[in-house]
């Protein structure tokens, strides 16, 4: 096997351990702050996946938005909760059996979907149509966002704007 392919497989394995280990750590960890940090590790693993798939722009956007903004928001929210460091809190509540059954069923459904669907694995197949060129160079992405998909783009901007105004209103000091 050529050297690059061996390196590719090794890097993929490391990233898998990072992503899945991080996800496992989120659920298993007793300390809520540690869970949030494991989530950041999981996001970082996904950044690596995007780079492996030659989607540089998406990798950087994932880093910027998930790790630079959403993870920080989650960390803030976690830091402001009570009972954060209480190691004697049990990790499950009374509904653990039903939740476990639901998780098992979801797992079975996802496994069947992953097995049976004929996923295109070669990059030429993925990039065949212009709508699939999300991972292409930034300029193509810009053309698509402001050309073919301009309406969802504008709707998303309006949504973010409404959220921003809502946050400002909620956080504003009420004038007596």
């Amino acid at each position, binding site marked *: 096997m050529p050297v690059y392919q061996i390196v590719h497989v090794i890097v993929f394995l490391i990233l898998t351990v990072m992503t899945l280990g991080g996800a496992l750590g989120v659920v298993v960890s007793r*300390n809520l*702050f*540690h869970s949030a*940090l494991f989530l*950041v590790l999981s996001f970082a693993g996904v950044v690596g996946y995007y780079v492996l798939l030659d989607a*540089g*722009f998406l990798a*950087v*956007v994932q*880093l*910027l938005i998930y*790790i*630079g*903004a959403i*993870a*920080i928001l989650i*960390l*803030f929210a976690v*830091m402001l909760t009570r009972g954060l460091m209480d190691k004697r809190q049990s990790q499950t509540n009374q509904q653990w059996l039903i939740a476990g059954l639901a998780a098992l069923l979801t797992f079975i459904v996802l496994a069947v979907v992953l097995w049976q669907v004929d996923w295109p694995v070669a990059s030429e197949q993925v990039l065949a149509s212009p709508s699939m060129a999300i991972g292409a*160079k*930034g300029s193509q992405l810009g053309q698509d966002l402001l050309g073919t998909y301009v309406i969802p783009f504008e709707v998303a901007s309006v949504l973010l704007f409404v959220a921003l105004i809502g946050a400002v209103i909620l956080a504003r000091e009420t004038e007596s």
Partner: protein
Amino acid sequence: MDTIVLWLTNLIPQMSEPVARLVVHLVYAGVLSFVAPVVVVVAFTYMERKVIARIQDRVGPNRAGPLGVLQGLADAVKMLTKEDITPQNADRPVYNLAPGIAVIGVILIYAVLPFAPGVVGADLNVGVLYIVAVGGIGTMAVLMAGWSSDNKYSMLSAFRVVAQMISYEIPVIIALLMVVLVAGSMQMGEIIAAQDVPFLFTLPLAFFIFFVATIAEIGRSPFDLLEAESEIVAGFHVEYSGMKFAFFFIGEYMHLFVGAGLVTTLFLGGWRGPLLGNVVSDASLFGMLLGFVYFLIKTVFVIFLMIWVRGTLPRFRIDHLLDFGWKFLVPVGLFGLMAVALILKLPFLSSSGLQWVGLLVANVAVIVISLALVSMAARRSRSVALRGVAGADR
């Protein structure tokens, strides 16, 4: 890097080209990770202390070595020999990881900085966006440090630092957007190539916003409310001592150098200079050295500007700081961005010389109008306050 790879394969004929490329990249990464922190911190702490001393009419370090040159070394030895204390209830893994992640977040930016023609770690297509993205990692390190120190004031200071850093990321992005619009690409190499006239002269508004917001992002004076000793008891790194504190210190000075390097690359033309490109070729080793020298001169000048600002201005209060970011820099930046986009699309300004003049006029107009509006508002509020106090106004 091709020049260096070529030179290496000529030097050692048995080395094949991919191996030579790998060796060159590894050595570059090693230099950036192990040599650059030490050199940058030692050189620029010395420069900062000397310049601030001269601004304050004193001499500065002059005991350690001739003219105090070994002062950085003395500081390093001091920090290495300090006792490494960990608070009893501190969250150990997070506490130990935080300084490392702070430095990692800064070294990652060095990877896209073009130090010389062809010498860049990875000339990413999305280089500019990458810089902004990696800034978020430093923010996370501050949160980790503040929380794991098991100290109320540490956590409060960490909240404030994160508020300041994320508030000033937006003016940085807007200034970068102006540069990217004019240069036509997010790649650092192409931004340098587009600067036949440095963007300082065509986009002064973007330069001002980026410069101020970079100083705020690094957390230097006058924006250093969060870590100054007389303020919130040294802030989020109060519980760190010895080498871990040294890491935060190193991270701050490396961020200073890389911030100045970014200002140089984006606004002063990077490694471009008088003889490079026409008399001395870009691809030769001498051309690389000359480019590196130009880059260093410009970066040191920008660092001198930042130290000058530090020695001159008093500290901002936290609410003034956030107001300045959100209520001044962001609107002015957005107006500037719209003005730049408008000028770039005007049909009668399509030749590059006229376009640059048009951009300069638009930028200066936005600066003048916004400063006039701010001064009118200040005068109005000051006369209201004076009327309230003394029953008279000017």
